[in-house]
């Protein structure tokens, strides 16, 4: 049976369909639930093999990126999500989903305004680092995918950064130019279990070769899809 992937959207999440397509391509069966539905029907979270918090501008980010959505998740679904992780099941937060998860107890650090001062849409290459993170473990090749964010500068207290490094929790780093001023070129971090990953770039927007901007130059890069297939194969194998 294919793993069930639950995408939890807040009002203003907007890459929910993109990530649903990526999950399908990666061999999972995705379902999109609005936050109210996930709160009202506990079986949605409890039956999910994988949970994704998608990109977008939840609650218009009016109190800061991901802040209000993070409060909803922490105060209304916090126990259910922690329970999900305790049962060995992964959670992925992409872009606004990452910004949301750092507002909860699930991920460390914070995401500030890009050091350039404005939103930026561009392509990046990511080095998979963590061998603990279920999404990046075993990957060696750089992953290509776009970024599209205004608040993607990863910030963490220096002492905690040392711990993250020591614990193999740096999941992804930008190769080459650092697009937003993130400390240590960090593009994604995972929690201490390796099950919860937050990342700013959008692997869900590079799941077929022709989505690459240099496709017509004959470019074949490592798909963002790899991250999804990597995690899903481990869920399926479990």
């Amino acid at each position, binding site marked *: 049976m294919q793993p069930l992937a639950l995408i939890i959207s807040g009002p203003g999440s907007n890459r929910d369909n993109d990530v649903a*397509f990526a999950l399908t391509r990666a061999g999972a069966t995705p379902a999109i639930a609005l936050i109210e539905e996930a709160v009202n029907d506990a079986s949605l979270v409890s039956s999910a093999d994988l949970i994704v918090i998608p990109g977008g*501008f939840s*609650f218009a980010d009016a109190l800061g990126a991901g802040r209000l959505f993070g409060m*909803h998740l922490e105060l209304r679904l916090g126990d259910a999500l922690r329970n999900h992780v305790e049962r060995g099941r992964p959670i992925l937060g992409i872009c606004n989903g990452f910004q949301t998860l750092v507002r909860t107890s699930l991920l460390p650090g914070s995401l500030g*305004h890009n050091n350039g*001062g404005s939103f930026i849409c561009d392509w990046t290459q990511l080095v998979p680092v963590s061998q603990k993170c279920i999404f990046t473990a075993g990957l060696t090749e750089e992953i290509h995918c776009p970024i599209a964010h205004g608040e993607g500068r990863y910030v963490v207290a220096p002492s905690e950064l040392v711990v993250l490094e020591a614990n193999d929790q740096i999941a992804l780093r930008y190769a080459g130019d650092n697009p937003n001023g993130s400390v240590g070129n960090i593009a994604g971090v995972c929690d201490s279990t390796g099950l919860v990953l937050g990342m700013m770039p959008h692997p869900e927007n590079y799941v077929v070769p*022709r989505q690459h901007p240099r496709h017509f130059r004959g470019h074949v890069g490592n798909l963002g899809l790899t991250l999804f297939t990597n995690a899903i194969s481990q869920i399926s194998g479990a």
Partner: protein
Amino acid sequence: MAAPLRLTLTPLGADGHSTTLLHDTTALGHIGVWSIQESRLLLFHDGLPQSVQSVLLGVLADPLLETGAFSHEVAVRPPQHFVDVVLHAGVTDPTAIALHEATRLLGFDVGHVSTGRHYTIDGHIDPTNLSRLVTQLLGNPVIERWSINTPIAAQDATLGAVTTEAEFVAIIDASFDDLELVNKQRSLHLDPAELQAIQSHYRALGREPRDLELETLAQTWSEHCAHKTFRAAITDQHGKAITPLLRQLRDCTDAINAPFVISSFVGNAGIVQFSPHRTLALKAETHNHPSAIEPFGGANTGVGGVIRDILGANAHRPIACTNILCFGPADLDPALVPDGTLHPLRIRSGVVAGIADYGNKIGLPTVAGAVLYDSAYTANPLVFAGCIGEAAADAPPLTGPHIGDRVIVLGGRTGRDGIRGATFSSGTMDATTGEVAGASVQIGDPITEKLLIDALAERHDLFTAITDCGAGGLSSAIGEMAELLGADVELMRVPLKYPGLAPWEVWLSEAQERMVVACASHALAALKQVCDRHGVELTDVGEFTGTGRLVVRHNGVELLDMETAFLHDGRPQRYMTAELPSPNRASANVDELGAIDVGAITLRLLAHPNLASKANIIRRYDHEILGTSVVRPLTGIDGNSPSDGVVLARPLAQTGIAIGIGVNPWYGITDPEFMAHAVVDEAIRSVVAVGADPSQVALLDNFSWGDPRRPETLGALVAAVAGCCTAASAHGAPYVSGKDSLNNEYLGTDGQRHSVPPTLVITAVACVPSVESCVTTDLKSAGNFIVMVGRTLPELGGSHVAKVLGATVNGAVPSPDADAPVRYQRLHQAIRSGLVASCHDVAEGGIAVAVCEMALGGGLGVELTHTSHADAAIGLFSESQSRLLCEISPQNLDLFLTTTHGDGVVLGTVTAEPFVTLTPGSTINLEEIHEAHHGASAMKSLA
């Protein structure tokens, strides 16, 4: 009033936004600002207990990112200044709304909150300059209030008493002069003949019109809604009658009779079908006047409005946005900014941020566009916003409204924002417009519109008709839907953002993010369920009656009762006179260019603001979302070179669509007819260049012009429409929708009128039959040939080479090329057959600029060995139409030349060495090209 409790949240460490802000102060001249620090400001008017303050700090101030502090006072140390800027009472405050939701989750209430920004400014700044800094850069009086060096006080939120009774306006016995007085006092912007038609109508009824009836007529009959000029009976200077302009465009489309057109020139958008399973809705709009006085809000709601047009076209789901922006020079001397207008830099910052904010948040890729600079746009910036939507081809057509259907308002609540926008945008602006028209600016809320899209996309079968609330608000939306049946509406039911709105304000408000649908009573519960699920507010405000009368009540009291027939068909046709232009079409005298260094000129062209890279703007827009971008607005090895058209396709689909833009006001100044032809050709050429099928192209026309009541301005419009029609007919590309924005004029305090140049934007949307066969503009391999298809003539009128030389080159603007349609068909065959490695259309700056852009994109050099014209400078810089440069491999060259029937001329070869040799003695290197294209003129900063 006492200063309220304030919470300031200040970013820690280097703050890119504040740096950008400091850079933007240069638009004001040297006023002595050393640094600016922006903080978020929240005012708690009812105070807060200490315990709640601590909880809020924990929630709102992330210790990794910002410091937060509650206070009643602000401590400053001279030469430090501070400024508080907050939204006016009544303006939608999303931060306050979100804060209330957050505190509700936490289980307490923070009472009345308003939010804004707090600026700490260091420097020796005199009071006058400090005030200029605030009015021109930090705040906008239209939506905000501020205080300088004093903590901002609470605003008296007491609202004036509301008149809910109808006032009768005495017009039936009025003299002509008195009618004009009513017209002016009420800002109706009606023509004399229209005033008289209204007077006659009410004379026949034997009663005076009520104020709401008069306002509704003024909105419905406004230039903005009724397109009076495009429907007018026009005679030229010789007394010859000219077919009404809209008729000409429709006739042109009818004559082309393209099989893919489903619906043209009716409803909110044009509808076409390029594939068996899906239809596309296409629309482009202007939002010029609002963007001039409140750039962020104007552009923001321009995007929101055109997206709703697509939703209003049989509920198509939006899939992509476009925009074309025209600004004054970004480096304009601040002393030259006209009274009552903003500096172009400020306008550009606000407009780009407004477009990015709406498109990015609503979750649509902003994929195609153009940015133009000219001093003529200083007081009249132009903002064109476009949207494309798709729907299943087998979606049942909407056949309503039917008698008995309910009138349903969906989405945002109604406030005092954007009142009288239709009539406002139909008038001329002057130094006082910003103050007078304050209420005309709408405030955007993309998330509410996103929810509306999701709700409408879920069920198509629950409503029988749909339209958006745009200019004129409910008066236009319900008025249009009720045209055949009539309706009875109760304004008390309309949900309001805050109390205190007079009924006329509810009826005319252009508050954003609202749609009106007709819904059968039995389907209402199901529709409500869908809306509840998505958090969309649904309100039943009345019924489509079948009486043929539009009746509006407030608390049961009748405020308006009109025959819909008079409202929609009672307007007398406008009679207008046009002075047709007689352009100089003689070829330019080549000597006018004089002796020039072609390498240096090429670099200056690449650095010209109109041709320099727009990457810093384009990257502010998300063009990756939905995963459909195949050819992006930027391309090449480093993803920073310009594309021609863009291509969108679902990730697994074989076919896609291409979008191309054509615009060139500079040709229009001297020859509006050939300008229009050139602009249509450019839009089509752009989509052909990426691989679209030239026999499946649909066009959108958008005209931004000056006051058409001036005969020569109307003459230029008539000539442009003629050019539009000949070009479209030649290419077999029909118009499916259009929009005109006239009266783009500014009345200076010197009494001079400043008009925009004739600005026609053509958007081409075309079928790409095979996405994998698409080509981009960047060169691929050394050793390939550069082949031009087309012909080069000495056409330098309105050209950019003339601009950079500062030369008055009088000659002809580029003329139509009768061979273009067949050329594009053959080129398309060659592209589909895989014969073309890269392709770039030749436009502003001519072959010299096009070849440099191709080289830059590929990181390769070019050696031009042949000129496209006997005179080398003409060959390089002429802007003759309908030409493209193709990169062809040696093994494909013969077949390409055969396929294009000898239309192609080999101009040179691609080289591995990073040099572009333009003529045997003139070589520039890629580094210089890069520096010119991405250097000083390309934007380094945008607030």
